[in-house]
């Protein structure tokens, strides 16, 4: 459980970085949003972190922040670096890393669609999945899917005989 | 009839006007009259009526020729420098004259209505059309080699004049044509001089004596000069490059006329000189050294290549008119091939194909012109779905393409069948396979034509189109109707070709109304078409009686992978309609044919530029006149000086 030396050197070049070893092949890195592109660039250029596994977005309502997690993997070091940044929920903007990692194109489009985060310089932020969706970005914590469903859809009302029997005895599924 | 016989009886003594004189006089009067009166709106109708009258005169002449008269002479003859120039109309010339005047009749009718009013200088077009008819009649009734040559030149110039009417690219194409035509004329002229040199005469009989008197090398030279010279006009394979742009850029009605008959003048001259006068046996005995081939089979192969290659070039065209003219070049190959087979079946088939081709090609061109008139373009990528807007034009085009592709029940099938059959009976399987391949290519190409114009998605800008006016629809429908009737009863057309065939000589083809009966397989179109129509009727019964009523839906109510379609989505598959085929034959097309074309094209362009440069310096007609006069003087003097 120790960070590879090369990686350690590189990571500590970045200002204000917090490094944590999650398990033997995953390093969690916390840093400020404006240093993230530089980190990804350096990791890719020096240590072969060329595979962007995913960009995850978490909506933190309490702190009014979006957490963006960039998971990058090096085929050389066989280690994953998860870079966590926090951006403000209002207006929810960040810059695209498409120029560094092409897969970011899809993930940023997805996050834009599901959370409403705008990525500056992303090649395509058109709707992909929710093209017929008129509501707010559904993955926001403020959007209550259950409420929406109750409002929009009807249910089949059925009461089979066995249920009636139980209900007559005072039981039931309620 | 009796009048005719009496005329013939008096012909020796009294210098009465014969039918041919009437015909030529009317044509000349019409041409000059239209130059004067052409601006009037009645000019087109006048011309149409006059062409109708000329058709009647030709019909009478046809009856006379059918009854055994060898030819109809003209009273007109000139003595130039000791040479007698005479004109006479025999069966072969009559056949082509009938097609000429008939095509002119429909073209002029078509141009008299709304289409003509939209044209800038329709009066001039009418006049030039009449001039063309006159020139062609002179050519077709030529009585000796010199009048043949004069007619040849006149036809070339008249066609040139009408081709330039389109303006812009049409002028360039016409210049290109002129270069070819003049080169061809020079070849013909040289050949005639060769005959003159050997025999000292310029009559048709002199040609026959010349051939028997000449050495083999000389005969070869004569053959090549004639074949090349006349081949230029009918766009035989190496000399075909001028035709497609020149004909397709000509304004609609005139273009239909030119397409239907103009190139056939070359075929007429070829038949006259090579088949009638020289004889196919002579050609067949003219062996090419070190091969199994003779001059005849070489020419047949040229004809076969002319069938195949232009057809597949037509397949690649994206413009309706270009596509059709390229097919026109290819169809010429069938006619020549049929005539060259030499059997009665082949000759009749070739001649009938000339007739059939004139009917459906004119109909096709008129239909395409109607589309241009309404939709403003003949670009196959910019049309589509017009069937709901222009149904009668669609019907014409459909009948036309069935004829062009040579499928029953149209007449194109009958003549092609006769040509195939004659090739098979004549032991020429390879040529037959080439003919079949060309037909298959034609089917592909004409389907692309009709699909891209009339089927598929209707474009938004064409939503409000209307059908072409009656003055345009009627002539083309009648032409298509002729195509169907002579397909149903090919005996009608064969009666006409009989007259021409008798003039050529050789065996006659026994036929009946429905077709021909041969020992090795016969064709009776009465049965074929009758059963086909009956069976389609049975199909209609099955369609209407079985199953529920039909319900017509909108074009957007269509399968699109589960998606919705709307007017701003262009989903009409039109460009590169045969992509798979293009991948296979495309490299040949691009590699060899295009490069060869480019080479010749550059040469022609350079020559054209020179020609233009000469002409720009001074008054153009003067130079033309000078050339013609010098040529005639040269002709005459050569006879005298040595």
């Amino acid at each position, binding site marked *: 459980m120790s960070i590879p030396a090369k990686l350690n050197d590189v990571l500590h070049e970045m200002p204000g970085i917090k490094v944590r070893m999650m398990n033997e092949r995953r390093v969690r890195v916390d840093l400020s949003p404006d240093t993230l592109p530089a980190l990804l660039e350096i990791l890719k250029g020096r240590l072969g972190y060329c595979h962007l596994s995913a960009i995850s977005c978490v909506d933190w309502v309490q702190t009014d922040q979006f957490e963006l997690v960039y998971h990058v993997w090096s085929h050389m070091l066989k280690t994953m670096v998860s870079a966590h940044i926090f951006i403000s929920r209002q207006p929810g903007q960040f810059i695209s890393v498409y120029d560094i990692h092409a897969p970011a194109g899809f993930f940023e489009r997805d996050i834009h669609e599901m959370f409403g985060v705008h990525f500056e310089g992303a090649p395509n932020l058109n709707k992909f999945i*929710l*093209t*017929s*969706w*008129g*509501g707010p970005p*559904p993955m926001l914590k403020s*959007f209550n*899917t*259950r409420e*929406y*469903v*109750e409002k*929009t*859809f*009807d*249910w*089949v*009302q059925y009461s089979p005989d066995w249920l009636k029997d139980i209900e007559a005895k005072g039981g039931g*599924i*309620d | 009839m009796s009048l005719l016989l009496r005329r013939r009886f008096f012909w020796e003594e009294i210098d009465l006007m014969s039918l041919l004189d009437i015909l030529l006089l009317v044509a000349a009067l019409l041409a000059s009259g239209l130059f004067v009166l052409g601006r009037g709106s009645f000019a087109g109708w006048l011309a149409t009526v006059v062409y109708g009258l000329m058709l009647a005169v030709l019909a009478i002449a046809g009856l006379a020729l059918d009854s055994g008269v060898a030819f109809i002479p003209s009273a007109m003859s000139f003595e130039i420098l000791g040479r007698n120039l005479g004109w006479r109309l025999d069966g072969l010339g009559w056949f082509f004259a009938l097609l000429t005047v008939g095509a002119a009749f429909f073209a002029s009718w078509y141009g008299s209505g709304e289409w003509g009013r939209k044209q800038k200088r329709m009066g001039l077009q009418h006049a030039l059309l009449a001039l063309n008819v006159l020139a062609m009649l002179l050519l077709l009734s030529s009585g000796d080699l010199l009048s043949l040559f004069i007619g040849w030149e006149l036809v070339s110039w008249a066609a040139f004049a009408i081709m330039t009417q*389109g303006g*812009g690219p049409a002028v360039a194409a016409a210049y290109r044509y002129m270069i070819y035509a003049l080169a061809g004329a020079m070849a013909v002229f040289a050949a005639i001089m060769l005959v003159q040199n050997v025999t000292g005469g310029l009559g048709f009989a002199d040609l026959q004596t010349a051939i028997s008197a000449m050495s083999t090398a000389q005969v070869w030279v004569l053959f090549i000069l004639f074949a090349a010279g006349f081949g230029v006009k009918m766009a035989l394979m190496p000399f075909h490059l001028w035709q497609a742009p020149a004909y397709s*850029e000509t*304004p*609609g009605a005139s273009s239909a006329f030119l397409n239907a008959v103009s190139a056939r003048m070359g075929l007429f001259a070829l038949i006259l000189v090579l088949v009638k006068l020289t004889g196919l046996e002579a050609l067949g005995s003219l062996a090419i050294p070190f091969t199994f081939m003779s001059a005849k089979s070489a020419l047949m192969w040229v004809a076969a290549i002319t069938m195949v290659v232009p057809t597949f070039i037509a397949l690649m065209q994206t413009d309706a008119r270009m596509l059709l003219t390229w097919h026109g070049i290819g169809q010429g190959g069938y006619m020549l091939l049929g005539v060259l087979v030499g059997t009665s079946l082949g000759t009749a088939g070739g001649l009938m194909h000339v007739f059939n081709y004139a009917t459906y090609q004119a109909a096709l061109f008129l239909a395409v012109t109607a589309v*241009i008139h309404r939709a*403003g*373009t*003949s*670009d196959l990528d*910019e049309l589509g779905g017009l069937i709901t807007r222009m149904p009668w034009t669609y019907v014409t085009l459909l009948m036309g393409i069935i004829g062009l592709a040579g499928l029953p029940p149209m007449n194109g099938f009958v003549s092609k069948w006769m040509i195939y059959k004659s090739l098979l009976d004549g032991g020429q399987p390879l040529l037959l396979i080439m003919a079949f391949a060309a037909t298959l290519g034609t089917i592909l190409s004409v389907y692309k034509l009709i699909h891209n114009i009339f089927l598929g998605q209707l474009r*938004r*800008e064409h*939503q409000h189109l209307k059908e072409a006016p009656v003055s345009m629809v009627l002539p083309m429908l009648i032409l298509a109707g002729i195509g169907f009737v002579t397909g149903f009863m090919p005996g009608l057309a064969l009666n006409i070709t009989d007259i021409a065939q008798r003039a050529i000589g050789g065996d006659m083809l026994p036929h009946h109304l429905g077709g021909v009966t041969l020992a090795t397989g016969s064709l009776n179109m009465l049965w074929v078409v009758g059963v086909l129509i009956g069976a389609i009727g049975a199909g209609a019964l099955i369609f209407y009686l079985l199953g*529920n*009523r039909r*319900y017509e*839906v*909108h*074009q*957007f*109510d*269509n*399968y699109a992978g*589960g*998606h*919705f*379609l*709307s*007017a*701003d989505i262009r989903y009409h598959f039109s460009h590169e309609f045969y992509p798979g085929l293009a991948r296979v034959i495309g490299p040949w097309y691009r590699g060899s044919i295009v490069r060869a074309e480019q080479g010749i094209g550059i040469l022609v362009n350079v020559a054209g530029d020179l020609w233009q440069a000469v002409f720009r310096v001074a008054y153009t007609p003067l130079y033309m006149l000078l050339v013609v006069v010098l040529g005639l003087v040269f002709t005459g003097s050569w006879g005298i000086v040595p």
Partner: protein
Amino acid sequence: MSDKLPVIEDQPEICRSVDAGERSVWTRVMNRFADHCRARSLFVLHYCTGCGAIELPPTITSRFDMERVGVSPMVTPRQADILLITGYLSIKTLKRVILSYEQMQSPKYVIGFGSCTINGGMYWNSYATVKRLDQYIPADLFIAGCMPRPEAVQQVLLKLMEDIDAGKANGWQDYYNNYDRYLGNQQALFGESWHTPTDVIAEAKHYGYLADGTMGRHTDLLLKRADYALDRVPEDYPERGKNERRLP
């Protein structure tokens, strides 16, 4: 949970309307014969609307071999008889399903496949999926379960055949007869601008399936879009310039 659920009125009973000519013996015999053949030749639309489609290949292929009872897959809705809704329907898919359903030729049958089509199933609280299929198109039969086994698929097909043979599977008539209700439900979900290229009302008129429920206040909205076919092009689409080509 159920106290919050709105109560939906029962569907009107689906029954076949009797044509005038159907009383003659000949028509009856022919109809009987047609139903017999319909039941034995069923083409299933090749549209994998949801995850249930994974059990269709086993049903079709060598092990269960649907073709031996005359069921085979077909590609376009024009040729298909059965629309298999294989599981959950997202709203985006439902639009395509309705489009495909309307393009199918009557008589046409809908089979809801899996619990999701009945009441939302696994995804009952998902904002993206439709809960009840039969609100939007008439379903003839449902298969419960997630996911139904090939045997269940076969069972439902056999049951459908039985129904067709007996002339009972007439959901398609219900769509014509109560088009307004179905359209209303569709509009509630997709918005009032919803329409499909198929003119269901005209079709119902043409074939005499017009009933009181065919037209109503929901179908009135469609009339506003009757001219969609010609020129209803959105504003952002630039007009194509006049044809610049030279007129010959």
